């Protein structure tokens, strides 16, 4: 009898104090996730726009991120319950995309483009200037760093599609450039103060390249 009992593996989950709850990863039921009504309604409205409700996964995750600052596990479970998909499915989607955060991401987002064209015009210095202004470690900032006060999420970014205003940055989803190192400090101050950021550098206000200074094909950058 004795030699028949095989040496059993220590249940690693128990080991790690993670005794699995059988239903933890299944599609959660709405009444178990207490999803805020407005969030539920927004996600439902999004789902209604598509022939297949699953198409709303990115919009739903955007909604979660807008509400909680990042795609929190609870937020993901709430969205999953509304969409009738597993939380794992949504986390998998969220983690694929650069703009969806699966960890805390501050109140303000500053993305500094460090891709070819911006790099050619001083992006690395700009990123360092922002890192200094926000108090982040410049090396960390290349891949994303939170300022010590947790307010600003600073990250080097691949081409943001604004090489014409290189070097540039996206600040709370709006584009600004061309920026000098000095602009970084100003921008961060304005951000934290809650005022308008670098109005004169905003892309929105910038005329077509060919129309700058009135004359088409004239005027230097």
């Amino acid at each position, binding site marked *: 009898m004795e030699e028949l009992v095989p040496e059993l593996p220590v249940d690693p989950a128990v080991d790690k104090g993670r005794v699995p709850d059988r239903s933890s990863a299944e599609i959660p039921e709405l009444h178990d996730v207490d999803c805020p009504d407005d969030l539920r309604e927004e996600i439902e409205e999004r789902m209604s*726009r*598509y*022939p*297949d409700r*699953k*198409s709303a*996964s*990115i*919009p739903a*995750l*955007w909604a979660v991120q807008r509400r909680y600052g990042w795609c929190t596990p609870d937020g993901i479970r709430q969205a999953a319950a509304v969409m009738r998909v597993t939380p794992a499915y949504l986390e*998998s*989607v*969220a983690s*694929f*995309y*650069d*703009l*969806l955060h699966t960890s805390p991401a501050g109140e303000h987002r500053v*993305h500094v483009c*460090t*891709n*070819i*064209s911006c*790099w*050619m*015009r*001083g*992006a*690395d*210095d700009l990123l*360092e200037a922002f890192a200094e202004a926000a108090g982040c470690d410049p*090396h960390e900032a*290349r891949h994303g760093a939170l300022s010590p006060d947790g307010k600003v999420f600073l990250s080097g970014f*691949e*081409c*943001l*599609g*604004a*090489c*014409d205003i*290189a*070097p540039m940055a*996206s600040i709370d*989803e*709006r*584009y600004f450039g061309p920026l000098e190192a000095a602009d970084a400090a100003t921008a961060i101050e304005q951000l934290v103060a809650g005022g308008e950021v670098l109005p004169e550098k905003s*892309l*929105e206000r910038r*005329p*077509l*390249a*060919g*129309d*700058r200074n009135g004359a*088409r*094909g004239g*005027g*230097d*950058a």
Partner: protein
Amino acid sequence: MPETRVLLEHAEDANLRTIDGYRGYGGYASLEKAYRQMEPDEVLKELEDSGLRGRGGAGFAMGKKASFLPRGDMPKYLCCNADESEPGAFKDRELMQRNPHQLIEGIAIAARAAGAGHAFIFIRGEYDLQGDILDAAVAEAYEAGYLGKDILGSHCDLELVVHRGAGAYICGEETALLDALEGKRGNPRLKPPFPAVQGLYGGPTLINNVETLSNVPHIVAKGAEWFKGFGTEQSPGTKVVSVSGRVKRPGNYEVELGIPTRELICDLAGGPLDGCELKAFYPGGSSSPVLKAEEGLDLPYSFEAMAEAGSMLGSGSIIVADDTVSIPHMALRTARFYHHESCGKCTPCREGTNWTVKMLERVVRGEATPMDLDIVASVQENIIGNCLCVLGDSMAMPVGAMVRKFRDEFEAVIAEAGDETAEPERIAAVQGPMESVGVGP
């Protein structure tokens, strides 16, 4: 040499964004024509005759692609590719921001030609401003009855949804875009089946770039012949070209296809910065093999000429490098981008981009040998043609070209960077932007 503005005409008028502003310049007349006076097939024919080539990268004839969609009343879809994430490209941003209704009108007309009842604009999540502008414009268009049920009494319906991505270059690849739109991770699909046959939700799907679709209202308004009056025989029409990098006036310039590349770079974009000399440029975005200034400047800016020169027009985005730019570092930046953006689905792209970055980092750190350059070159060869989609090739081609065309510079970097005393001095020699390049991971 001034621009030839068709798509960017009136773009200086901020009011063009609104439906009234757009109508003020005759906007939506083409849509009325297409829905009231033309049969879907006539619209399709006009587009085919125009010879309009895709502006998103592949340069495939737009009308022809639309004609591939099967007839019959299964649900069909149209996707406007507004993911514009290729380094150097920012033309679609301009078109959507300044003239959203031109795009919406183009989509509505193309949808009629293709028999699509549901259309989507897949816009990269970073383009938040442009997304808001589109949302507003789409609402106006619904309001005006240009979208929705029974458009202008034609018994044709069209639902248009602006779908924001969330930051992934790969979603610009048409089949990855479909997966993303279906709510999945943006991984490319096997082709065949091609989207025209089996695309979104398994239905026939037409996928076109923002600029391609923005051309449609003009073709319907003025006719294929008028359109072919611009550009070359194989590259008809005008092109909004994004010029950036080391030039005086980076920006979007709309020109007839086929004009000398020099005019774009040196006249419109103002040429090299003072005291600098042009060295090389990507003629069609970061995915196109770089051309040395001397080989490229006098080529006509057309699909065919760039292809003959062993590169491509791609999305029509020129990135200019001058003598201050270290090509090995540029190669590294390029490789890093594709490594970061590779979806990871197929082996050669996932591991090849990663391997290439690691090798190039050693190169610029001076921890490489010329033998490593051969490995870099051969790894690029091993990627090309073996991947699921062409993202892998999009790194391998330019990086391969750079190692081939600027081998001496690579060897110099290895040698100099390897030499403790030489390194700081050399990097200081190039200006600002270069300094922190390539240090660390």
